Each structure stands twice: as C-alpha cells, then as structure tokens.
C-alpha cells in the first residue's frame, strides 16, 4: 500500500488532498466535516481585516453544464470571508488543536501596507496554524480594491508582500497565483525572490458564464447586471496544468514547491498535477459539486494507481513528467505517426471522415468499393490526431508510430531513426548549422 502522507514545505498531511481556500473552508463546521470525510488538509477561506466584507445577496455562482447537467465549469463572484476575523481565528485555533495531523493553512488578503500584514500575521500565528497562503489571485471584487489579482498581476508587489510576510512571520508561506496574466513564470519568480516557500495555482480565471438573452444581462445576473467572476472546475484543468508545468520547468523556479489547483475532480487529475510538479493538490469545485465524500476515491484511486505502478511514496510521483515537458522547437520532427482505424470497433458514424475531409487533410475515406467504410489514406495522413479526438469510440482510432527505415507514403521519404528538431531543420532560417571551415 503506497504511502500517501505528504510533507509539503514542512506542512504534514496524511494525503496530498487539500481543500482550497473557498466556501468549503469558511467555517469550523465545514472544515470538521471535511476532515471527518478524510481530507488531508485545508486552506482556510481567505481572512481579511475587519469590518468584514459583504457579499451580494443574489447569485454568487454560475455554471456551464453538459446536456445531462454535468457541471463542467463554475464561476463565482463571492468575496473573501464575510465573517468577523476574531470568529475565524478562534475556530482555526480550535480545529488545529482537534485535528493536529491535518494540514491547516490560512489564506490571507489585506491591503499592501507592511503594517497591515504585520498585524494579521501576528494574530494568525497565535492560532498555531501550519502556514499561510497569500491570496494574490482572486480576480473579482477584491481586485477592484487593490488586492487579490491586482497584486498578483504585478510581480514587484508579489515580491514586496512576500518579503514582508517572511520577515515578520516564522510560518511557511505559500503564494497563490492568478492565471489572469500573460506569463505565469514572472509572478512565480517574484514570489521566489520574495522568499516564498511555495506557490499555489491557479486561482480562478476572469469569466462571464453566459448572457441571459431575454434580459441582456451577463450571468450570473444580480438584478439585471453582471460582473466578471472567477472560472474554475474541470474546464480549467488544462490551463492549470500548463501553468504548473511552466513553473516546474523554468530554471529560475525549478524545485520551488507547488500546490496544484484547477479542476481536480478525480485521483487521476491529481496524479497529473503531481506528475507535473505539484507536491499537493487543492480541490474546490469537485467538493462543491458532489460533497466531501469525493476525497475517498481520490485517496483510494491514487493509492491503487501508485501500487500498480510501483510508487511507494508521493515524492516519487511529484515532477515525474516535468522532464518531458518541452518546447515545440525541440519536438522530434522525425517521429512519424499515422492514424489507424480498428474496423471491428468502428461504428461507422463517419465523424472522422467529415472532420478530416472538411477541416483537415482529406485522409479518411467514406466509401471503399462502393460500401460505407472509413479508412485512413496513409498517403494523405499527417498524423494530426483530429480523428482520434472526434471519434466517439475509445481506442477505435489510434496513432501508430512508423518504424524507422520504413517509407512514409505521404512524403515518400524514409523514416529516420535519429532525432531531429526544428532548430536544425533546413526550413528554419535561424537553424543552427555547423560552422564553416
């Protein structure tokens, strides 16, 4: 049985599954329920200064659904905790005392003045919480007041505040990053420069969930008006994975611990984040959709998968895929793959054909010898994988690598065994060529 216990920047938890700073971690009541359900840790919903913020009294959430109302994406316009600071601190202290084996990190957001940070850090330290997470990510509401993503979008501010936190507190410090920037490496570098022990990402993405076409209001609509909210849930996972990987492989931040966030719904999602460098994962939407029980299978599934693969501890998984995250220019151009359709599995829907015919390379038949049949034309197939993507049957179409030495029917060229990429390709005007004698 694999050991799921985690030591993330000195913060220990029985498993790497933490609840993210969000409504599920706003109160002792919720957090205790989460710990009873098996969650390894929580990041308490962001604390601010008194007087507490107020929330809208209309809808705070909007959703994208599949046809059977499967929740694909969620957004929210909820602010940080709207409960008095004192109440939160008292509950945090009590919960940490009652659940010493679980990670309890406190998320913070106060104005960018050193004294404000000093004040709140002192009070949090008294709770004996395991660490702090600096909320530089919230894209709505608080950003209008110069906090949240307004800080996260300015690397200099991130570095400055992080430095204050490290200077005035003994607690481990995680900096939570916003994805609403062009290059996530810059804020991560700033966090590291400021002395952050780790970064967590992603926070939510600026979003309008839709438009109510009857009243011409963005949704969710508060009395006929809408403001952009933060997008999260399964739909954002690919964006989060990329940002996590960017930080993990950036030489400037390589090795900086990462807590991965963004659409983690299953153990597999978590394993993927971990493979790309996340030492823990944080979950919110899955819990808000299905309740805390989802952690049971996250734990069980991850453990089972690790056993199958021979991993005995979480550390062995973390970062395993990072060396394989590359830049386009280094991808092997001598790797030639062709789509192959398994005729026994093919249900003859023809989607591969029409996708290829209308939008790609005219490389799939719809008729063979007068009968409805979908076959790849190797002479035309560029191996793009679109047909695999649109095929409704799993594993019906596969990409098969061509053996070195064989001839690609499309280019009539021999498939080379040697790796060769764009940097040396003759079509590249910037190609690195051997110096002339």
């Amino acid at each position: 049985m694999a050991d799921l216990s985690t030591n993330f920047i000195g913060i220990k938890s029985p498993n790497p599954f933490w609840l993210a700073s969000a409504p599920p971690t706003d109160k002792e009541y919720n957090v205790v329920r989460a710990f009873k359900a098996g969650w390894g840790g929580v990041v308490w919903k962001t604390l601010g200064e008194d007087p507490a913020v107020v929330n809208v009294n209309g809808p705070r959430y909007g959703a994208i659904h599949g046809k059977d109302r499967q929740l694909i994406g969620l957004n929210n316009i909820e602010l940080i905790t709207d409960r008095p600071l004192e109440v939160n601190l008292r509950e945090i202290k009590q919960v940490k005392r009652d659940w010493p084996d679980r990670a309890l990190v406190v998320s913070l957001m106060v104005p960018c003045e050193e004294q404000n940070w000093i004040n709140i850090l002192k009070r949090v330290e008294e709770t004996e919480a395991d660490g702090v997470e600096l909320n530089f990510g919230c894209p709505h509401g608080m950003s209008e007041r110069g906090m949240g993503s307004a800080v996260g979008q300015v690397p200099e501010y991130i570095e400055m505040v992080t430095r204050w936190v490290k200077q005035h507190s003994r607690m481990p410090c995680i900096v939570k990053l916003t994805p609403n920037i062009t290059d996530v490496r810059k804020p991560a570098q700033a966090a590291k420069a400021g002395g952050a022990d780790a970064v967590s990402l992603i926070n939510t993405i600026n979003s309008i969930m839709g438009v109510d076409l009857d009243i011409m209001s963005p949704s969710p609509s508060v009395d006929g008006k809408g403001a952009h909210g933060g997008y999260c849930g399964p739909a954002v996972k690919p964006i989060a994975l990329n940002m996590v990987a960017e930080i993990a492989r950036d030489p400037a931040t390589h090795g900086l611990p990462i807590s991965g966030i963004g659409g983690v719904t299953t153990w597999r999602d978590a394993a993927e984040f971990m493979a790309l460098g996340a030492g823990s994962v944080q979950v919110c939407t899955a819990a808000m959709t299905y309740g805390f029980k989802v952690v049971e299978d996250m734990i069980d599934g991850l453990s089972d998968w690790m056993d199958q693969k021979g991993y005995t501890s979480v550390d062995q998984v973390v970062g395993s895929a990072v060396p394989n995250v590359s830049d386009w220019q280094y991808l092997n151009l001598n790797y030639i793959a062709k789509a192959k359709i398994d005729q026994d599995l093919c249900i003859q829907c023809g989607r591969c054909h029409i996708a290829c015919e209308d939008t790609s390379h005219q490389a799939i038949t719809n008729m063979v010898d007068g009968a409805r049949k979908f076959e790849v034309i190797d002479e035309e197939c560029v191996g793009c994988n679109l047909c695999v993507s649109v095929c409704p049957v799993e594993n019906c179409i596969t990409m098969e690598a061509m053996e070195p030495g064989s001839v690609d029917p499309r280019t009539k060229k021999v498939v080379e065994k040697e790796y060769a990429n764009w940097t040396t390709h003759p079509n590249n005007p910037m190609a690195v060529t051997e110096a002339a004698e």
Partner: protein
Amino acid sequence: MTQTKATPDIAAGRLSEDAYAENFSDLHPLLEPHEAMVEADRCYFCYDAPCMQACPTSIDIPQFIRQISTDNPTGSAKTIFEQNILGGMCARVCPTETLCEQVCVREVAEGKPVKIGQLQRYATDHYMRENDTTPFERAASTGKRIAVVGAGPAGLSCAHRLAVHGHDVVLFDAKEKAGGLNEFGIASYKSVDNFAAREVEFVLSIGGIELKTGMRLGDNLDLAELRSSYDAVFLSIGLGGVNALGLDGEDKDGSLDAVDYIADLRQANDLSKLPVGRRVVVIGGGMTAVDIAVQTSLLGAEDVTIAYRRGQDRMNASEYEQHLAQTSGVKIMTWAQPKTLVGANGSITAIELERTAEEDGRLVGTGSVVTLPADMVFKAVGQTLVQSDLGDGVALEKGRIVVDENRKTNLADVWAGGDCVLGGEDLTVTAVEDGKIAAESINAALSA
C-alpha cells in the same frame, strides 16, 4: 374435441373506467425537455447518416436532433416538416425499429439506438403546440387545380406540397372525416388526444386545399370526370376491400373484419360501450393483426390469440410489435391456418385451425387440427384495392395501381400513391413520401 359454450360471451364494459383510460393512454408519452436534451446528446451527428438513408422520406435526422440539442425545437420541426409534413404522426407510428433506429450507429454499437421517433415527436409536438399553421408559405397562385382522391397520409402529403407550390387542391375523401388510416386505422394508444384530426387541420392550414368529405370514387366521384375537370389527379384511395378467409361460417356473428372493428374503436367516444369477446382469435400476421389483438386485450378480452400460418420470423408485424402483443397478454400461435369457423345459433363459438408445415418452401396443412374456443374471430389477412372504383384505363398489376418512380400512372394526368399502388410498403411514412414525390412531379408537369 374441446367442448365450447353455445352462446358467445361478447360484452361491453369489461373494465373499470380507470382501466380503460390507463390501457388506452399514450404508448410512449412525450419526452420532457431534459429527457429530450439528454437523448439528443446521444446522437453522434453522423456523416451521411445511416438513419437518414433509412428514412423513406429522407428526413435530415442528425440535423433535427442537433437542433433539439441546441434548444431550437422550432427549427428542428421545420427540418422534419420540410421532408415530411406528417412528421408528427410518423413519429408515433413509424416502425422505427426497422427503419431509422435499426441502422442508428448506436444500435449497431451498443444495441441502444437514439430514440429518433420520440425525439421527432418532441420537435413536431412542440411546433404544433406553439403554431397554428404549417411553417410553409404558398407560392403565388398558379391557377391550376388538382384533385386529390383520398385524404389519408398520401393524399394529405400530396395536397400540402401542391398547395405550397401555389396550386389549388380539392381533397376528396369517402369518409365523413379526413385522415384515412391515421384516423381510422392506427392503434389508438399510438395516437391519443385526437392527434390525427389535429394533424389534418395542421396540414390544411397551408390554405388552398378544399376538403370534400363523403365523396367516394366509384360512387359519387368518377375518375374520367375528375380528369376532365382538373389539371391533374392524384389517387390515394387506399385499399377499400378486405380479404376473406374463404371458409364456411364467415357470415356468422362474431366473424369480423379487423379494420372495421378498429375504425369503430378509434371513433368510439366511450370505449366501455364497445362490446368485445371474452375469447378472441385473430387470423393474420401483420400490423393490423397485432393492432386488433392488442386492443381487444386492452378492452378486457381474456384470451387473445393471433394465429399465423407460418413462423414468427415471417410475420409482417415488426419484432417490436410482436413483443408489444406478447407483453400485452396476446398469445402468438404460429404454423396454424384457419380451417373452420364453428358456430351455433348463427354465432361463432370456436375456430378450428390446422397445423401447417413448410415442405420444399411450400406451406402445407399437416392434417392435425386444433380447436380454439372463440367469441370473436378477426380477419386481418390483408386489404385489397376495389378495382371497379377506378373505371377503365388505369393500369394495374397484382391488384394494385402501377406507377413509375414519379408516382405517375400510365395516364398522362393521373398520379397515385399510398397503399393502393404496387410496390408500396403499407406504411404511413412511405405513403407520405409517395404524396410528396407525386406533388413534385405534378408541379413539374404543370409548370412545363
């Protein structure tokens, strides 16, 4: 030999009021919007979709299903009506399990086709609930007049398409109500809430169609006169005659034609007043046999048996219909042909059936006889064209009107379609297609 009662047990009101309502309620209730969305999402939007190929009216099925899934049920219905103005009825009565749904790639892959028929009904019902008229506009008047004889599916389809093209149509029907078998023949649990009549109104809403009922070819209508008074004639007169068994005792009480009884049932305001036998035997193996068997069972008959002279795989009734019969308490007895109708005091009391077998592809009686007690015996062994109604001149073959691919007869100004033509499949949907094709051909001929 089995002893049979001397007096037949035929009675009305065998069931409670609730049971009648329950038994004759909608076989497949209308999908709820969420159900429709989920079901529509199952459609793969196939390229050159097999379902569309299998539809006799070539409805663009992937397109109309996609339109349901994009919350555009009105557009969806238009896609359907474009090819099949009786899409509402076809959604209810088409044997989808042998047409579109049989070739659905999900049927092939997992044995669970997309519920195309029910989705079609979702769209068409939506449209007909929200709109009073068909989604088409008539072209400018051509001044041409066409006689359409028979207001069943073929006639309605033809009349509508002709009206769309700007022609004026007089639509004749022998009965007091239009609709043909949709009104008088379809099993009642497939068309509840007076749908057939509502659909006729919907079709006629296009305008330019004058309905004249109580006008029967061969009685108060004459083909030669129609040809001289109209620019073209479309015959969609169905099959007015009923095949007989050719047995002794067929004139006895309790020996009935299935189509007549079904018509009575469909027109009955109060099913509890409709007498039905306690023991019913149906002779035949087609849809009509199943319809009468199931409906008499639903009316409270205790023993209902379909006797068919060949094996179950040879029955014209689809597998789905056979299952429907069997789950409705009907027994299907195969390899049995009627021999004698046994009776007393002018009424039927039993039927003797002879066991059959196939020898060198030929059906033969084995001599072994089974006697089933019966208060009612229904004949459902096919209908015939009453040839004398047509007068002289229309070419016939195998008792049906011969038409070309444009549904044109041998006469220059006469087209025909529906059950009365040779090569028809006795389906509502093929009749609709006949009417549509004929209308296009007539339009082309008159526009030339």
